[in-house]
């Protein structure tokens, strides 16, 4: 059991150990969906939702089932993540078709988003309890959203500037990400 305070869990997940910029989790949407601020924001919000659900399920699995069969952890977590994403997809489709259309392909793609699977693994490795786990999930989700929106705003303004032709595309995105990551390093002293 880990006795870190909720605030430090939250703040560490959101800013100091930002999932995308410091731990390299969830890079696929970070590269793929960060072209427009609006899509980035929606993607981030959907992520927070799935992250919290995953954290809850991982806690249930850890407390009641995996005690006796620890070697099934990776397999059971990936099944939980895959079925959660499926359920969320169906629920969103039923309840709000508009949102479903806006999110498009990004919803099903969340299954292979390392941030979500990574959250379950990190939560287990650090021995977080129920409340800590949920705080961790919310913090991580907000951190992802923050990184996505920052990146999208920078990319929107870069679009109209005169970039040398060799740097167009992924190379430039990676260097911007490196700069952002450097900026986030400044928070390291806070905790």
């Amino acid at each position, binding site marked *: 059991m880990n006795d870190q305070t909720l605030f430090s869990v939250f703040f560490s997940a959101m800013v100091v150990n930002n999932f995308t*910029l410091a*731990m390299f989790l969830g890079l696929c949407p970070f*590269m793929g969906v960060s072209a427009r601020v609006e899509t980035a924001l929606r993607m981030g919000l959907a992520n927070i939702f799935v992250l919290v659900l995953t954290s809850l399920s991982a806690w249930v699995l850890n407390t009641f089932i995996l005690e006796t069969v620890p070697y*099934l952890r*990776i*397999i059971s977590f990936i099944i939980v993540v895959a079925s959660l994403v499926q359920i969320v997809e169906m629920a969103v489709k039923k309840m709000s078709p508009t949102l479903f259309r806006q999110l498009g392909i990004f919803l099903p793609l969340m299954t*292979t988003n390392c941030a979500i699977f990574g959250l379950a*693994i990190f939560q287990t490795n650090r021995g977080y309890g129920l409340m800590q786990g949920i705080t961790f999930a919310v913090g991580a989700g907000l951190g992802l959203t923050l990184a996505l929106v920052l990146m999208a705003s920078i990319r929107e303004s870069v679009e109209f500037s005169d970039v040398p032709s060799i740097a167009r*595309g992924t190379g430039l995105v990676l260097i911007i990400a490196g700069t952002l990551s*450097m900026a986030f390093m400044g928070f390291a002293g806070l905790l």
Partner: protein
Amino acid sequence: MRKTTPSQDFIRGIWNENPVLIQMLGLCPALAVTNSVANALAMSAATFFVICCSSVLISTCKKFIPHEVRISSYILVIATFVTLADMLLQAYAPVQHKELGAFIALIVVNCMILGRQEAFSAKNSVFRSLLDAIGTGIGFTIALVMMGGFREILGEGRFLGYSLFGPNFEPWVIMVLPAGGFLTLGFILLAMGFFEQRKKAKTEQAVEVSS
């Protein structure tokens, strides 16, 4: 789908369609664990093991896997081999296992592996799937070791733990920190873009001269 020869299956993953540098798949491990060459090697070895085993198994069983649940079946097969790799590393390389930590488990969600199963093993024979998996695995290893090399040499002045420049070298600490991962891959891509463009310009010139 165009037909390819077995040697093309093998070479393609190594260079022309290098999973990390060209296709931008499996970026998470490529950036997260390449702060030293030893970690990059351990990660590549684990990924290599997983991709080869799952390619062979999936291409063997491709007739029995129903089309509707194929993705979930692939994920399950991959997860099983990742668990094996995790245990093997823990037993034989405990130091590296501790350094890599959760990133071994994260091989499951490496899109590169699932991508190869869906794009290749599900349609081709066992032998060619194995060749394709080995090629892709080597391509992944090259990319990871290259990044790990750059970051360790510049960030610590060492290669595989051996000191290179003596005590007067001032290490670029930024390279072993997360930001260095993004920057290294970014600059490698810039260099590749530069050479690509120069090659293109040269062929264009050659065409002009010949015409």
